[in-house]
């Protein structure tokens, strides 16, 4: 029977899930090349966490617990994917999961800064980034639509990510210098 304590516990677990969502999303996005499946996996993880809330003990490592759940969900989704997709092996995923940095802090600020940084990209690079991330197109499709080579697209996307990362980090450092 549901008690007030068990209800509160479920709410606590759900609250923790929301707090860890940015990291979790980054984790799942990193392992799943298919953007459209990421939300399904996050949703599955959320439902699993809710159903198994009683298994979580307050004060223990929520992050480790929820990432384990997400990892299993990712593996399950990978197994169901097209054979053309080559997933990372389980031991690699495990190793990566152990090394995930704390990305939750300042996530919203980073999103805001990213908007500013995107404006600094060259028009062609920005268009490619938008096609890749807004329209979920792969480099081959972008190349075809823009009439350029696939390698060129890959190189430009790679450089753009480096530039954007550096730009966001630079602005974050400026924030901390000026106490924002």
């Amino acid at each position, binding site marked *: 029977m*549901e008690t007030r304590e068990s*209800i*509160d516990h*479920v*709410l606590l677990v*759900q*609250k923790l*899930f*929301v*707090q860890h*969502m*940015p990291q979790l*999303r*980054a984790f799942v*996005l*990193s392992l799943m*090349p*298919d*953007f*459209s*499946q*990421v*939300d*399904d996996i*996050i*949703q599955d*993880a*959320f*439902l699993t966490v*809710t159903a198994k809330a009683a298994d979580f003990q307050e004060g223990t490592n929520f992050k480790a617990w929820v990432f384990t759940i997400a990892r299993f969900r990712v593996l399950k989704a990978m197994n169901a994917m097209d054979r053309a997709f*080559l997933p*990372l092996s389980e031991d*690699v995923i495990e*190793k*990566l999961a152990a*090394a995930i*940095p704390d*990305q939750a802090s300042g*996530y*919203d600020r*980073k*999103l805001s800064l*990213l908007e500013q940084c995107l404006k600094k990209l060259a028009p062609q690079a920005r268009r490619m*980034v*938008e096609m*890749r*991330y*807004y*329209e*979920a197109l*792969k*480099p081959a499709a972008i190349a075809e639509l823009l009439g350029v080579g*696939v390698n060129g697209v*890959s190189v430009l*996307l*790679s450089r753009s*990510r480096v530039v*954007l*990362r550096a730009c*966001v980090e630079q602005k974050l450092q400026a924030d901390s210098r000026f106490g924002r």
Partner: protein
Amino acid sequence: MDDKHTQGLIDAWFDGVLDAGGKAALEKALLESSAARAFFWQTAQIHALLREKGAGSAGAAAVKSDNRTGGRNAVRVVKVAAAAAAVALVATGAWVAQRMPPIASRQSLAASQSGAIAPVASSPAEITESRGSGNLHVAARVSDERAYLSMPEEAWAKRERQARIFAANTDRITKTFSKKAWVRSFVPLTSKEENKMKTISAAAVLSATAVIMGAVMAGAVSEPTLIDTSWGDRRWTTVYTNMVPLRWDWPEPAFNAELNIVGMGSGFTTNFNEITNGYDWQAFTGPRPNAEDVYDLTLTFRDASDNVVEALSASLTVVAGAFGPIAVNTSPDSRRWGLVKGNAVIPYCAGWAESTDGARDSRLIIEKSGGASQTNLIGSASGYYGWKLAGNGSVYGYGSYGLYLTFPGTEGEWDAFLTYVPKGFFMSIR
């Protein structure tokens, strides 16, 4: 680690263009080098941020993508589902008088301090009308911009951002939250009922002032709530508690009363043999509902000779969306949107399309291929319809169905088609 080579492999991985040889090399690097893992996460972070940023524009992208393939189903399915996701527990009707003898002594509806009652008149389903017009205009007139505004992706992205901000600030929040009452400015009533119900409608408006939320969630974390700005929308009557206080005035001649609550999945009846002015109904147990449902509530007062003195009705829809944080499926391509595994709670809202925005009531036709057609006249322009497809008491069976939603007096039609098979429902909506 060969930095440049590894970085190239990681970039290729994130762009989904890594071949088998490249993948093996990447795995080797990730297993052996902490620097490679660190770079992997650095790239992952910007990758996730960009995707998050892109998700806000995914609605527009989905529309474009859908147009390229010539179909609109995915967009429509998402749009319909968005309405369900945005709402938690919805009291979709105040006590509204049904057909009965003239009301001489009806008093105003009492406004509970913690109640969540809103004034909506409803008409019972009529199963006699047959469908003769075939497929009407599909709601293709709705502009893509308007559809985009209704897409859940953007709302979801905003909601998530707000949730993060809220979660970050949770420690600073010490007081419980509450929301002020909102009074709807319009009570839709059929013309037939209008004369008899002047008293009741005015009182019903008063009852709407008592919408107070948060009894159960007080002190806990509540996500920001999606706000619906459609003035006639029942979603204004959303409450966030499983305890629904029902309140009424006992009519003088009444000797006893019977409260009957019927949902798709459950129901019960209780009797009052003395003057009673309220009943606290627990719509479900636990922190969130086990299943979504639409309940019809009927309160019948009888005199000492067992004649009906007065009958009041209301309805309440339970949807899972806002009982605590909930993950929302934002992928228009997800198969989940096309799969329903139980009784269906179907949202309807005239505000979905500009051309129907002024409608005051709705009509839902359910047509079985090679079988009967059922026309449901609904005395409101927005709300939820409970379609009991499965379990005891269902009059439906396996087969193919067409659903046609229109708003009388306006043009345009939403339609959906599904096949009910033993393992579930497969639905597409356009």
